[in-house]
C-alpha cells in the first residue's frame, strides 16, 4: 500500500485523501479508518494532513445579500423564458420558410426581414423584463406603519421593521423581504405564490393572514397564522433544514441558537395584538420586555445590568403611554426608574 510511506505533505496532496476530508463517504471513510487501524504509527501524519486541508480558505469571501440573491435569480428566470420563447418562434417560422423556398426568393427575403425584426424585438425584450424596481418601506422604532402592495395585499409593519419588495410583482411569484415584524393580509391568488423572505426562514402562502417576526440578530424567529394555510421553510443559507405547514392558530418558532424549530398551537389574539396597538406580556422575561419596550416606544434603557432580566412579568396595555407601562412594572417590583428624554434610567434600589 502506497500510503504507508507518505508523510503529511504527500497525504495533503493526494486526491483520494483530500476528497475524504472534504466529502467523507462510507467507502472512503471505511478505507481510511482501516488504514489507521493497520498503521497506528501514521495517526500523527493523518491528523496533520487533515489540519492542512481544513485550514485553507479564501481571504476575501464576498457573498450576495438576500436582495441581490433574489434579484439575480428573477433576472435569470426572465431572460431564460424570453429566450426560450424566442427559440420556439424562430424554429416555427423556419419550417414555413423551407416550404416557401421554391416559391419565390422575393418572399424569402421578405420573410427573412420579418424574422429579423421579430428576433431583434425579442432580444431587446430581456433588458426591459430584467429591470425590477424595488421599493422599501420602513417603520422606525416608536411607530407602526400600514401599507398596501401592488396586488392589493396589506402589510402592517411593527416598530423597527423594514420591507423591500418589487413595485410590481412578476407573473409567477410575489415576494417581499422582511427584517423585523409584520402582519400580512395577502390577497388570494392561486396562480402566484406569495413568499416572505427573512433571515433563516421563507414563508410561502397563496392568500391568508399571518404574522412573521424576524428581527435581525434576534435569537428566535416566529411565524404565526391567523387564517388559511402557510408553508414555512428554511432558506438555503440556513444550516438547519426544515419545512412545516401551519394552520390557523399554529406557530412555528425557530430557536437560532439551539438550531431547532418547534411547532405549537396558541390561544387567543396575543401574537397579533400589536396590530391593534395592544402590548401584551405573558410571563415574558424582563430582558425581552425591555427589548420590546425599546422598540415600541423608541427609547433606550440604561442600567439594566443591575436588575434580574430573567425574572418574568405579565401585563396588558391598550395603546398606553410608556409611563403607564413602567409604573405597572414598578408596582410588580421589577425596577425603579427615571425617564430622561428618550432614555429610561434604571435606578439602583
Amino acid at each position, binding site marked *: 500500500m502506497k500510503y504507508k510511506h507518505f508523510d*503529511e*505533505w504527500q497525504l*495533503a*496532496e493526494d*486526491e483520494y485523501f*483530500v*476528497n475524504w476530508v*472534504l*466529502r467523507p463517504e462510507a467507502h472512503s471513510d471505511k478505507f481510511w479508518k482501516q488504514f489507521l487501524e493497520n498503521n497506528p504509527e501514521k495517526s500523527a501524519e493523518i*491528523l*496533520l494532513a487533515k*489540519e*492542512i*486541508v*481544513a*485550514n*485553507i*480558505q*479564501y*481571504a*476575501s*469571501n*464576498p*457573498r*450576495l445579500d438576500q436582495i*441581490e*440573491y433574489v434579484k*439575480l*435569480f428573477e*433576472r*435569470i*428566470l426572465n*431572460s*431564460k423564458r424570453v*429566450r*426560450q420563447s424566442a*427559440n420556439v418562434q424562430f424554429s416555427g417560422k423556419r419550417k414555413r420558410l423551407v416550404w416557401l423556398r421554391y416559391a419565390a426568393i422575393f418572399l424569402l427575403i421578405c420573410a427573412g426581414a420579418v424574422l429579423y425584426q421579430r428576433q431583434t424585438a425579442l432580444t431587446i425584450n430581456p433588458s426591459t423584463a430584467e429591470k425590477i424596481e424595488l421599493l422599501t418601506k420602513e417603520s422606525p422604532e416608536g411607530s407602526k406603519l400600514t401599507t398596501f402592495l401592488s396586488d392589493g395585499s396589506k402589510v402592517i409593519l411593527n416598530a423597527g421593521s423594514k420591507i423591500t419588495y418589487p413595485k410590481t410583482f412578476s407573473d409567477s411569484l410575489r415576494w417581499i423581504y422582511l427584517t423585523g415584524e409584520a402582519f400580512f393580509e395577502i390577497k388570494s391568488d392561486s396562480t402566484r405564490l406569495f413568499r416572505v423572505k427573512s433571515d433563516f426562514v421563507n414563508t410561502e402562502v397563496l392568500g391568508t393572514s399571518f404574522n412573521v417576526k424576524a428581527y435581525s440578530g434576534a435569537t428566535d424567529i416566529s411565524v404565526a397564522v391567523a387564517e388559511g394555510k402557510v408553508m414555512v421553510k428554511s432558506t*438555503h443559507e440556513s444550516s438547519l433544514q426544515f419545512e412545516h405547514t401551519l394552520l390557523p392558530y399554529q406557530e412555528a418558532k425557530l430557536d437560532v441558537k439551539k438550531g431547532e424549530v418547534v411547532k405549537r398551537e396558541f390561544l387567543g389574539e396575543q401574537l397579533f395584538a400589536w396590530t391593534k396597538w395592544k402590548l401584551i406580556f405573558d410571563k415574558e422575561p424582563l430582558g425581552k420586555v425591555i427589548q420590546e419596550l425599546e422598540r415600541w416606544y423608541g427609547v433606550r434603557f440604561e442600567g439594566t445590568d443591575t436588575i434580574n432580566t430573567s425574572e418574568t412579568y405579565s401585563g396588558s396595555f391598550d395603546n398606553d403611554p410608556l409611563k403607564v407601562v413602567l409604573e405597572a412594572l414598578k408596582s410588580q417590583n421589577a425596577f425603579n426608574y427615571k425617564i430622561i428624554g428618550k432614555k429610561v434610567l434604571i435606578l439602583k434600589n
Partner: protein
Amino acid sequence: MSHQEILKGLENGDESVLSYTYHQYVQDLFRFGCQFTNDRELVMDCIHEVFVAISTRQRKQNKIHSIKSYLFTATYRQIIYHLKRRKFSDIENRKNNHEEFDIELSVETRLILDESHREKLNKVKKAIKKISRKQRQAILHYYYDGFLHEEIAAIMGLKNTNSVAKLIARGLRAMKDGIITIAIFLIVDACLFLG
C-alpha cells in the same frame, strides 16, 4: 440530485432544477468571480449570462463532466471577456495580482490567539503572500472548493493535471513551515481541551 439528473433537467428547461443549481452554486460562483474584480454588478451580470446559457441550451452540454466546474469555467470566461473590454476605463475595479485568490488560514477566525501565536501567524501570512497567484488559485480550488486536479486544469486553462499537481505541491511547500506550526497548535489545543 445526481449530476445526470441536473443536466437532464436543465436541458428540458425544468425551472426547479435551475433553481436548485442556482441555490447550490451561486454563492461559490460569486466568491470566485469577486477574486478578479471588485465590481459586484459585473460579477452578477456574468453569472446571469452563464445560467441563462446553460438553461437555454446555447452550449452543447453533453461534454460537461461536472456542473460545478463547468459553471466556474464559464464564469471565468465571461469575466475575463468583460474585463478585457473594459480594461482602460475600469482600472480601479481590477484587483492587483497579489489580491487575487488571497489565502487565509481559518485558525485566524477559529481561535483567539495570544501574542506569540500572532507573531508566528504573521510570518505565515508573509510566506503565503510570496507564493504565486496561480499556486494560490490552484490551492484554493483544491482544498476549499473541492475540485479534482482535472477540473482545476479546465478552470485554469492548463493542459494537463500534472501541472495542477505541481502548482499545488510547490505552493504548499512554500507555506510549509507556517502551516505546520499552526496545525500543531491546533492539535495540541484540541488534546488539552479533550484531555
